[in-house]
């Protein structure tokens, strides 16, 4: 019986080690992929270590005292001890020390991670304006994300392309309700509010990004409605050179000439006739004011990882999404805006959308 208990214990402890390795590098907060995530992770580990030590010490003392001073069958009331200065001082000082050990790194990190002065300088400079360091304006809506690169005049949605190995600064706000911007392995959560803009910075390490195959999953981290859990975005981590070439392609994207086949051209017409063009811009240079940008920019739709942020990117899913968006994202603001589409219109639209690309 004793042998079985030991084996069970061993199995359980090995399992905890194995199970704690469960976490994908593209989404796990416990597999940091950048400087911000590293600092946050080390603080997590520090506080967990402190807590584990405290729990262990208290448990050991507790069990020891319980065993040593247990009632031994006599009815004698034990000696009533009325205080011990030594003990009281010890158990006040130790928590204070632990507090200092925890507080100093936390405060230092807080100030470090909040330092967005380089962004203010960059934005104030006309020639720079958010190119270097890169500045991204994030705008969260129900249930999609808009990313603007003010230094380049490019607006995109859903897929955030970021250069690795350099600090990228963010201005974040929301357009309707409160959301929260979170890329678990890289950093966040930072709320996007309707009444103010928040700022922070992130940095992605290129080596660790490779382990995640250069795609990180982004999530919304503040309850915003029925499709809150479906408000995903993706982060493409690429080298600065690749980023420069991508942003150039985006700047030079000509939406008018992108439809080549007959079906795609027909789709372009459907896109205009059904009113899609009223909300969805197909050019990265969208000069409309913020309030008018009520739908994701579709300029590089064909290059994106997902349809509507959550569906695998293939023709069938595009058609499914267009046929019945409410089924996939309950409460989304596209439902009911264009009536029923015929099979022909669906195919044409799909072909058109698949032609919207800067990489092809």
């Amino acid at each position, binding site marked *: 019986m004793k042998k079985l208990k030991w084996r069970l214990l061993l199995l359980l402890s090995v399992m905890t080690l194995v199970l704690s390795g469960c976490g994908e590098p593209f989404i796990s907060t416990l597999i940091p992929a950048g400087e911000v995530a590293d600092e946050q992770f080390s603080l997590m580990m520090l*506080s967990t270590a402190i807590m584990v030590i405290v729990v262990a010490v208290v448990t050991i003392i507790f069990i020891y005292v319980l065993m040593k001073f247990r009632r031994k069958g006599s009815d004698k009331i034990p000696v009533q001890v009325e205080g011990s200065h030594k003990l009281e001082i010890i158990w006040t000082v130790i928590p204070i020390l632990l507090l200092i050990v925890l*507080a100093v790194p936390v405060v230092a990190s*807080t100030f470090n*991670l909040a330092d967005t002065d380089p962004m203010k300088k960059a934005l104030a400079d006309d020639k720079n304006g958010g190119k270097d360091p890169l500045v991204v304006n994030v705008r969260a809506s129900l249930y999609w994300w808009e990313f603007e690169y003010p230094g380049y005049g490019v607006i995109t949605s859903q897929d955030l392309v970021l250069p690795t190995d350099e600090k990228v600064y963010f201005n974040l706000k929301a357009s309707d309700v409160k959301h929260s911007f979170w890329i678990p392995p890289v950093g966040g959560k930072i709320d996007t509010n*309707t009444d103010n803009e928040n700022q922070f910075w992130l940095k992605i390490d290129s080596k660790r990004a490779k382990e995640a195959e250069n795609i990180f999953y982004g999530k919304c981290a503040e*309850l915003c*409605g029925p499709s809150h859990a479906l408000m995903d975005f993706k982060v493409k981590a690429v080298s600065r050179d690749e980023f420069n070439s991508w942003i150039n392609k985006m700047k030079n994207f000509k939406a008018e000439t992108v439809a080549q086949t007959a079906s795609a051209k027909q789709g372009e017409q459907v896109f205009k006739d059904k009113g899609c063009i009223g909300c969805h811009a197909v050019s990265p240079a969208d000069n409309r004011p913020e309030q008018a940008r009520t739908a994701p920019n579709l300029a590089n739709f064909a290059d994106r990882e997902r349809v509507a942020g959550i569906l695998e990117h293939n023709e069938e899913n595009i058609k499914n999404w267009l046929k019945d968006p409410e089924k996939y994202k309950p409460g989304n603001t596209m439902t009911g805006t264009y009536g029923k589409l015929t099979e022909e219109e669906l195919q044409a639209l799909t072909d058109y959308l698949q032609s919207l690309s800067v990489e092809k």
Partner: protein
Amino acid sequence: MSTLARKKGFWPTVWDYLTTVDHKKIAILYLIAGGLFFVIGGIEALLMRIQLAIPENDFVSAGTFNELMTMHGTTMIFLAATPLLFAYMNAVVPLQIGARDVAFPFLNSLGFWLFFFGGVFLNLSWFLGGAPDAGWTAYASVALNSPGHGVDFYILGLQISGLGTLISGINFLVTIINMRAPGMTYMRMPLFTWTTFVASGLILFAFPPLTVGIALLMFDRLFGGNFFNPALGGNTIIYEHIFWIFGHPEVYILVLPAFGIFFRNYSNFCSEKIVWVHINGVCNSVDRIFRIHGVGAPHVYNRSWSDCQCDFCSCNYDNWCADRN
């Protein structure tokens, strides 16, 4: 009424409990009601778990899941945990200080029935057009955006329930301050009574902000107010601050009586009078009243980076990882 006379029969007993002002019977009522709501909240949790068990599950719709999540949180905190603790406080505190009953027995009963009917009203929302779906904290922007009347049920149900809790809190404060037996100084009070005292003080300071916050929400939702509408000069973050001025003391309201219970159990089973731990516990508890109001801020710390936020973060070492708990 002689104490030896006993009501016999089922219905007379029911009537007795429905109209009682005796603290022990009210404690039993709190236990039953709290237990009932605990089961309801538990079922909501189980339904959520079933939905989450399989990827891409469609056991409940997304909107229903949000309703389940909101109701589970609201039920467990306001309608299960607080009443169960009130049950203990009602049953034990007057006996521990040697009082015959609480200071205002009628208010005690009123407090219970207000809580109970507030809880029933809140749960009626399931059948009357949908439960609230804005989270148990009902943050301003998503609560204002929520279609249907679910959040209105939340607001009104919690106003009624909260009033009941506030009444009971004041009741205990007065009982403990005024009705201790002769010779029972504050320092001779059992620790459970001390923690109840502190928790009642917290209730007195914490529930009014909740009342105010959800009243403002009610004005915005029902009467065209714009307290939390940034387009017209309002501010959504202020709701979060007001809510968490309530929210953080609330969790201490829940935990302090529990601490009191196990302080008391330790001293009983150790046959020690536990006086000095007593003093420790007392000072700790009183100091908490002041500290916890300040340290609730970290619940809002990921809202915006600002330098003054850091002071609150560093003060509250045991909450630094709080994320809209």
